[in-house]
């Protein structure tokens, strides 16, 4: 099981450092981490894909995240219905003669060519990790020059970020 966590945090300087420092201190390893703004300027969303771990370890990760003062909400999306996407840019060898092959290869992935050079093309693909892995392994025989992946970002299904934030606000018990 590779856990996927969605973490809402205060959009403040140093918060990313708090999270990464926590992971270093506790020896938690991550596969990918994305940080982005949300519809609220004060709140950022981190999407964490963790290395494989057992349930007890995941529980500890979530509890430690919760302990951070700047963490507003931690959601485990691993088993939950979610929409998750990643974007990859793949620069692949593509002499003119092979270009048509590459185009037909990437077509079923709904990937597109976003840059064309004399010897290479750069393919852009979005999807879940599995789909991206599949395209990468298809392109590998042609010679991948460079590869950049954004890491996964995710939302639970049938719950927009807006309603998630609203629920959070409504559940606040203030003042302490």
């Amino acid at each position, binding site marked *: 099981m590779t856990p996927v966590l969605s973490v809402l945090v205060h959009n403040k300087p*140093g918060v990313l450092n708090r999270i990464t420092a926590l992971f270093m201190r506790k020896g938690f390893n991550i596969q990918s981490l994305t940080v982005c703004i949300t519809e609220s300027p004060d709140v950022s969303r981190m999407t964490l894909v963790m290395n494989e771990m057992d349930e*007890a370890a995941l529980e*500890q990760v979530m509890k*430690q995240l*919760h*302990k951070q*003062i700047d963490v507003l909400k931690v959601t485990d999306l691993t088993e939950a219905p979610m929409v998750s996407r990643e974007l990859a840019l793949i620069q692949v060898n593509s002499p003119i003669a092979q270009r048509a092959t590459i185009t037909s290869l990437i077509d079923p992935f709904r990937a597109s060519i976003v840059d064309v050079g004399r010897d290479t093309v750069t393919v852009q693909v979005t999807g879940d990790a599995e789909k991206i892995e599949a395209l990468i392994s298809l392109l590998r025989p042609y010679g991948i020059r460079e590869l950049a992946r954004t890491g996964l970002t995710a939302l639970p299904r049938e719950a927009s970020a807006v309603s998630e934030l609203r629920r959070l606000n409504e559940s*606040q018990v203030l003042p302490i």
Partner: protein
Amino acid sequence: MPGMSKPADEMKRPMGEANHRTDGAMLLKGADMVVEALRRERVDVIFGYPGGAVLPLYDALFECGIRHVLTRHEQGAIHAAEGYARVTGRPGVVIATSGPGATNLVTGLADAMMDSIPIVAITGQVAKTVIGTDAFQETSIIGISTPITKHNYQIRHASEIPKVFKEAFHIANSGRKGPVLIDIPKDVAGETALFSYDDPPQLPGYQPTVVPHQLQIRKLMSGLSRAKKPVILAGAGILHAGASAELVAFAERHRLPVVHTLLGLGGFPASHPLFLGMGGMHGSAAANKALHETDFLINLGARFDDRLTGKLEFFAPHATVAHVDIDPAEIGKNVSTQIPVVGDVREALLMMLAADVESPHADAWMNELLATKEQFPYWYVQEGTGIKPQRLIAEIARLTAGNAVVITDVGQHQMWTAQFFPFEVPDRWVTSGGLGTMGFGLPAAIGAYFGKPEQQVVAILGDAGFQMTQQELAVIGEMELPIKVVIVNNGALGMVRQWQELFHGERYSASLLEWQPDFIKLAEAYRIPATRVQEDDALTDALAAFLAASGPGFLECVVEPRENVFPMVAPGTGIHQMVGVKP
């Protein structure tokens, strides 16, 4: 938080409206705001050391009415703040300058983090205009202190000061307590802003659960009433929550044996017939037997530290574990827990006391444990003419009638004190548990004195740890503080030496202090009356005179150099595999 609630928006009102406010808001300079915030938090003493970046703050502190104690090193200041916090339950406040001043706080921050000690540490920072330029005495104390503080802040404008201080004191002293650091750039101290301290802290990401879930309490109580071999493990959470009376009432109600952690000592009276002693590496045979054989373990505010549990597979292997902790992350971290109870341990005990359940039928178990307690007390062999360190501790306890506030450093003398000083009441025991900080004791004693000036304060220190922060004798000498400093001099880094003897083939690598300073002259240089005692038959008289004298005192006790701390759970073994349970 900005945009998330109304009061935050209110704070953005232009200052011109200040005149219309009726809440006592006033225009102040940043440095004066800090002092005013400390006043509002009813801070009566600050431990600190000035320097360039905190000059404006020290100017505001001058003759402000809050007592300032100048330690001789910032590490001393933060350990003093810890000592103060431990005996009062109120946050200790420490101030240091930027750069080296701030980095000298690091050990104390880590120590307070491990032992859940409420601290508010204020550090100066270089001016905002030069942050990031490697300016003189600049260091990123926020980056450095993030993993060793409960939270930290860098103030970007004086207008943030009231909000940040209010939050910092609240975070430090609520939930699982801990250190909070506030970094203040020098130019912020000169900025002017509106000061209002009436808004409650708004921390949507920080809402500790205080009252436990009734269902979990019910599970705990019904499990307990079916238990055959129940035991309570009581940690420092009892002291932080002020739950001693409730603990005693609960243990008595159901006739439950009680084991303390090192840091929990004093939460349950040592002389109580239900008390089994301290558990863990140097705990009592009865306590460890109970922890190993129990079928129902109630952990009240302890964190299952490895020095307590020994090898985990032998720790309470047959038990249903119930764990009450204000910090949910502690539950299930080391020991798998069937009945988690998140909340304040005093609230939990009140609910447990209110539960109407049958007491467990555990008389046979209780009698067995009490027989073990009787059979295997802490021991030492009195032989020769030298002083046995254990007897030294027992004599201090006897001569102070167990009433003193006792502070130790870290090592053998610390374990002997935990074993031989019977703590009867809470908040008179100050020691560095989790981090095991040598050099903690002397400055912590200074802080403990300011927290409880009406009590006798005795600092029991090893000869090695004392030398790590010995410069703080200057504070005792200068202010003539009636602190009694006892040096347990075995001419070694005793615990290191013991482990080398037992586990490293008696190869005493860098652990024997064959050259030592003249401790008497050292103390006298700080104008503290000092005596040396090295013969057992002179010990009692020397101690009695030393403890009875007024003002500061320094007693060097030269003790048997090869004495070891027993009983012991060797590292990597289970708590049922103790060695040295009897002579």
